[in-house]
């Protein structure tokens, strides 16, 4: 046990927990926009996978990680548009069409990888940026302020989203459309437009999350997200549809994972228990869902396609 409490180990546990949380945070935040407007998008993982491939492949070809991140963004944007078309315009069942998008992303990203790349090759990863002054703070500096730019951007997206959702007219429309689309519609708010917008935001963030994941790892391979997209969706419920809650959930998830791994490497968790340790995040999520479900209410129109009586 004592080994765990060395400075370096503690700092590393938290720092890597934070990095682990970033893709979850981005994808979860995007999903929160959609759900606040009444759309459940179960296809996040598929979008992340394709975004991951797009980002990876671009960096491989172009050599610039930021262009790679943009590529992930573009992929996410397109898939967000397609998902919006399926769920908003065609009004398909949100849960199942999302599974379809997931399967498509899973297969397609692998297919593209095998055809266009084949042998896994490392790409550049994001350079670490040490924030002047803040980065020099003992402990805190090392944990928080010696990360890469994407980490900072992801955490910046939280307050931005809080402002967008709670303080802008657009955010008000999102909340209204997710709660009572008929009422919003009667005031001239286009339910479809708002939902397209949130789906585009959601897709974009999922694409960025995937690209950030692949570029941060410096590699792509089949199913690289390993169902992180689904975890991100669960985090939206966990966070009771609030950006801050999503962030807390993502951090908790990241910390639990890096703690479990750290304990495994230190022999605190023996291998025969490792399967159970791997269950922990899922079980914690279910328990959190129980708590949230009894305290908070989902947006009333969630999963319900909107149709103007006619």
């Amino acid at each position, binding site marked *: 046990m004592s080994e765990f409490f060395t400075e370096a180990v503690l700092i590393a546990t938290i720092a890597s927990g934070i990095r682990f949380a970033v893709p979850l945070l981005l994808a979860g935040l995007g999903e929160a926009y959609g759900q606040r407007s009444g759309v459940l998008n179960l296809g996040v993982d598929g979008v992340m996978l394709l975004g991951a491939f797009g980002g990876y492949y671009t960096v491989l070809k172009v050599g610039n990680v930021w262009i790679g991140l943009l590529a992930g963004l573009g992929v996410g944007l397109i898939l967000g548009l397609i998902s919006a078309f399926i769920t908003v315009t065609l009004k398909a069942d949100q849960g199942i069409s999302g599974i379809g998008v997931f399967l498509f992303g899973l297969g397609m990203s692998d297919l593209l990888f095998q055809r266009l790349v084949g042998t896994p090759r490392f790409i550049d990863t994001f350079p670490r940026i040490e924030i002047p002054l803040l980065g020099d703070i003992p402990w805190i500096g090392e944990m928080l302020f010696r990360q890469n730019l994407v980490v900072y951007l992801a955490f910046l997206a939280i307050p931005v989203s809080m402002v967008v959702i709670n303080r802008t*007219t657009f955010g008000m429309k999102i909340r209204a459309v997710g709660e009572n689309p008929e009422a919003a519609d009667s005031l001239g708010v286009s339910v479809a437009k708002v939902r397209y917008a949130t789906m585009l935001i959601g897709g974009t963030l999922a694409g960025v999350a995937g690209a950030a994941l692949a570029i941060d790892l410096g590699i792509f391979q089949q199913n690289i997200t390993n169902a992180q997209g689904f975890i991100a969706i669960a985090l939206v419920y966990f966070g009771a549809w609030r950006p801050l809650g999503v962030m807390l959930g993502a951090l908790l998830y990241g910390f639990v994972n890096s703690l479990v791994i750290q304990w495994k490497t230190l022999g605190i968790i023996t291998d025969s228990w490792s399967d159970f340790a791997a269950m922990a995040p899922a079980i914690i999520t279910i328990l959190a869902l129980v708590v949230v479900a009894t305290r908070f209410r989902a947006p009333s129109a969630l999963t319900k396609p909107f149709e103007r009586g006619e």
Partner: protein
Amino acid sequence: MADTPMMEMRAITKRFPGVLANDNVDFDVRAGEVHTLLGENGAGKSTLMKILYGLYQADEGEVLLDGEPVVIDSPTTAISHNIGMIHQHFMLVETLTVAENVALGLPSSKGAFTDLDVVSDHIVELGGKYGLDLDPSAVVWQLAVGQKQRVEILKALYREAHLLILDEPTAVLTPQEVDQLFGTLRQLTADGRGLIFISHKLHEVLALSDRITVLRQGRVTGHATPDGATRSSLAEMMVGREVKLAPDKPDVTVAEPALVVSGLEVYGDRGLVAVDDFSLEVRAGEILGIAGVSGNGQRELAEAIAGLRAVTKGSIEIAGTDVTNNRPIEVRDVGLAYVPEGRMKDGCIASFTVSENVLLVDHRESRFLNRGLFDFGAIREHSQGLVDEYSVKTPTLETPVRSLSGGNIQKLILARELEGTPTVLLASQPTRGVDIGAAEYIHERLVTQREEGTAILVISEDLDEVFGLSDRIAVMYEGQVMGIVDPATATREQVGLMMAGVRPELSP
């Protein structure tokens, strides 16, 4: 009044699959007047108004504003033409504040950010001018019904509506709230605004309107003015024949109390007491009507009696058996039949067939089973019997009830509930939203049932119905009985005051 109407609809026709909702309708409004649209349920009033507000597109016809033809293809367009609409059902986002509901969809003075402080100030200002008192920062779900109504009006005024459509704005208000609303509306017409008013309450129509247009089956069937019309003349124009406003009731000797409610306390959905120390007896062979403005605990009372809502204090007895907090099925077994207020919500399963809906309560019964499996022969026979007896108009027994008319669905529910002569019949808003014709029929059935010795508790917001049907009237206000009166001697005004919370002994 100006010569050109501020709004004119010409030869409007609107078809829904199989329904001609508006058939060549002409309708206009002049500045400073209240023009009332009158018609039975389904006559096409809301449809016409939704066309005017851009929610539906007319198949034929045109709309003119100040003499100029316009195309109103969305609510946004309507709003930009200074048309406002108060919908039949509240169009409010319950989780947003009053100010947010008002500001929704409007450009903000602060660009992308909301300007709720500015909006709030203006709300208070408008409220002061028109007697619409509200806290702009209150979250809507916390508001009382009357307050929600005010939010709706404010939304329209905030958008500078010159032409205001009010689709049944009084349905959920107390008589006093109605008076207050009418005060506001008169102020609006005095400002030169035009109002379209829709209501089924004929005395309100006579009190408020300048002109009246009657719709029947989608067609304009008549025009009237308040000075030249009476309630029964209006009813006749609506239905197309003479209408019996109250059923004939033979005398029946009442027997033992069949339903005894004593000291009942029940909580509502929001965790507040909805039924408070409520006591009542209904005897076999009598109809007890409960009058009251909606939201005064009637729904909770009915649900508690039916076993659908937990009772925290007091007791409920049916035919001498204590059924307090029993499961719904147990209460039914003792002899309760229940016609719920939400016909589509609670009373039937819209996608199920007529036969399947007949089975809703009785599907476990052995007479419909054969070795554990449904006996479709028996089920069909039984359903056909009920459909014939209650003249439910349906193409087949396999038709989903979704495609039946409201009146026929209500008859089907009634048929199902009255089957086997229940000890107690609890009927909530039995004729709400059904044709006058169907309503007449339903009233007759209730009277017949009374003769057969069933104790009947009718909950209704329709005073005409309560007066016409009841042997005794109990008035419910804030979860309590304000008093019990005899319909033969009591006046509407007395009952109205009681509905507003004034105890009879205090009234002059």
